[in-house]
């Protein structure tokens, strides 16, 4: 994905020389990441014959898409120096309710809208708690994470909700292919493209970077900080709802345990993609490459037969290494 970065948005927000510096640094970060991804792909192809087979590559892309959508939502949030721990639980609640709606015969378009609306609503509630009630994002979304998980379990009575009869109309989202690629991948690309445009070509996007870099300075320059924050949490919830729809479609079941650990996976992706948890740094391109890196890594380790426990150790190490490289690079 070759992307051209515009000089002007950096210049507008931060002043000319700093803007150019930011632009160059962003480019260096992205190309560094891209190099890491390429190296990983080459190693995987060398280690395993199965890696480059079309079936396997499609699997990898699908994994990128499944985690990537939520990660993009989290990118919005992390850019404002916030955090959203509740995305996994939002996926669970929307999964369960989607399955239940399908089973009572609600038409598919309505189910889709309902799922997106539910995700948006939960995101909005997070945002309101953080802006109106001034609850720190970590605490608010932690509480939401626990509550929503309990809510999902209550709704589903602890059991998975099978979607059998209406699966045919719905399974195309997660299961089918369109022009050779899984529908989920197309959805991800659309979300990524849209998010890129929002972040780099709209005022809202510029405000997000501003709030993340320095919330006080942003406020003093007239940016509506609470509205911006409300927006990013809502987006995060919305994308979690979308992910839930894809999950239900793919597995043909709504599980109250869906999305367990998803938030940490997404945070890892965003952070490896070069975002700073202190806000202001990061973007869709970085997150996408981060998602690709983790997906290829997991796939490669699976194909080679590395135990899942060892895989976890490796993944954690990668996260730490990636972030320390990023910190070192920024210090220079």
């Amino acid at each position, binding site marked *: 994905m070759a992307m051209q970065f515009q000089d002007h948005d950096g210049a507008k927000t931060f002043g000319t020389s700093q803007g150019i510096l930011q632009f160059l640094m962003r480019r260096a970060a992205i190309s560094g990441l891209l190099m890491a991804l390429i190296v990983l792909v080459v190693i995987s192809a060398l280690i395993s014959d*199965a890696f480059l*087979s079309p*079936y*396997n590559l499609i*699997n990898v892309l699908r*994994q990128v898409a*499944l985690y990537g959508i939520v990660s993009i939502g989290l990118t919005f949030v992390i850019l404002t120096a916030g955090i959203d721990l509740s995305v996994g639980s939002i996926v669970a609640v929307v999964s369960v309710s989607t399955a239940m709606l399908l089973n009572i015969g609600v038409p598919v378009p309505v189910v889709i809208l309902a799922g997106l609306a539910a995700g948006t609503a939960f995101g909005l509630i997070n945002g309101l708690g953080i802006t109106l009630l001034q609850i720190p994002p970590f605490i608010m979304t932690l509480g939401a994470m626990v509550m929503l998980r309990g809510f999902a379990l209550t709704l589903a009575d*602890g*059991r*998975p909700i*099978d*979607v*059998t009869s209406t699966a045919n109309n719905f*399974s195309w989202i997660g*299961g089918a292919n369109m022009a050779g690629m899984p529908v989920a991948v197309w959805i991800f690309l659309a979300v990524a493209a849209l998010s890129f445009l929002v972040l780099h070509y709209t005022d809202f996007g510029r405000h997000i970077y501003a709030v993340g870099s320095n919330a006080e300075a942003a406020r003093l320059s007239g940016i509506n900080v609470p509205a911006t924050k409300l927006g990013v949490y809502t987006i995060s919830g919305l994308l979690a709802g979308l992910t839930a729809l894809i*999950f239900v479609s*793919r*597995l*043909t*079941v709504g*599980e109250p*345990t*869906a999305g*367990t*650990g998803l938030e940490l996976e997404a945070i890892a992706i965003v952070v490896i993609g070069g975002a700073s948890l202190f806000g202001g740094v990061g973007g869709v391109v970085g997150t996408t490459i981060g998602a690709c890196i983790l997906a290829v890594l997991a*796939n490669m380790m*699976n*194909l080679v*037969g590395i*135990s*899942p426990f060892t895989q976890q150790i490796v993944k954690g190490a990668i996260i730490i290494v990636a972030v320390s490289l990023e910190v070192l690079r920024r210090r220079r």
Partner: protein
Amino acid sequence: MTQQRARIVTVIGAGGLTLLATASIAVAQDDPLKGVDLSKKCKIGFSQGTMNHPWRVAMTEGNRKWAAEHLPNVDLVITDGQNSSAKQVSDVESLLAQNIDVLMISPLTEQALTPVVKDAMAAGIPVIALDRKVNTDVTTYITAQNEPIARQAGEFFVDKLAGKGNIIQIEGTAGASSAVERKRGFEEVIATHPDMKIVATQNADYLRENAAKFMEDVLQRFGPGQINGVYAHNDEMALGAIKAIEAAGRQKEIMVTGLDGQNNAIQAVADGKLFATFTFPYVAPEGVEYAYLACIGKPMKGDVTLNSATITVDNVKDWVGKGF
């Protein structure tokens, strides 16, 4: 190990040609691979749903070790779903990408794994389901069955108590299909003997501590001589009950049975503390055996029911260390 276990093969699946020479309807088979040519190379993928219980570890390790020892031409690739069906689905996709000849799977949940198993079957890859099933046809489904084992336990109680006595039942997790079945089978048998009564029953969630607490209360409720036997839905709860009974000093008058065949329970039988336990076979090495049969073109189509053995002090020495 395979010689000592009697397995009754029940072919329920309809259609398809059963190429396997020795199998037909309801024939006892000790060793599915007896006399079979083991020279063909096979790549078998085994997707396990979770390894969070020793029984599942025994299933996985049992198949792995047996294949390593007895099937030198088999490359067995094992994945662990880590208690997430989403992960298990992508594990299966990953196995399929490695061009396996046969898929062995113990699905975490029925429905979530159904689409991907359907894909595998449609692609001509035989699927062997272990212990749990999916909502689509598979080549072979191998499991032990809770209800028959529970009935076996019921008959055991009738026999040992000579058709008369008070029984305490300690049940597994409420709503779990295994608990429901282990209760139903047992109560079915007891109901036909009017002098045998289940005087108290409680669900202890398959946990040792819960069972011990319940047993303590029961021992208070029913004085000496009023309890003859305890039927626990699993070994852990049986061991908990024993703790309470020994503390009250009433072990001589109460017989306790477990279920599963854990090594600590087998040892307890050998030590004379646990009266008996009923094994719940963990589908090893049957899993990889039937997978190999499918690979060489002689699949056992249908359901294979694994029999349970009753372990008492009479045969315990054959079983020590063979549990999980």
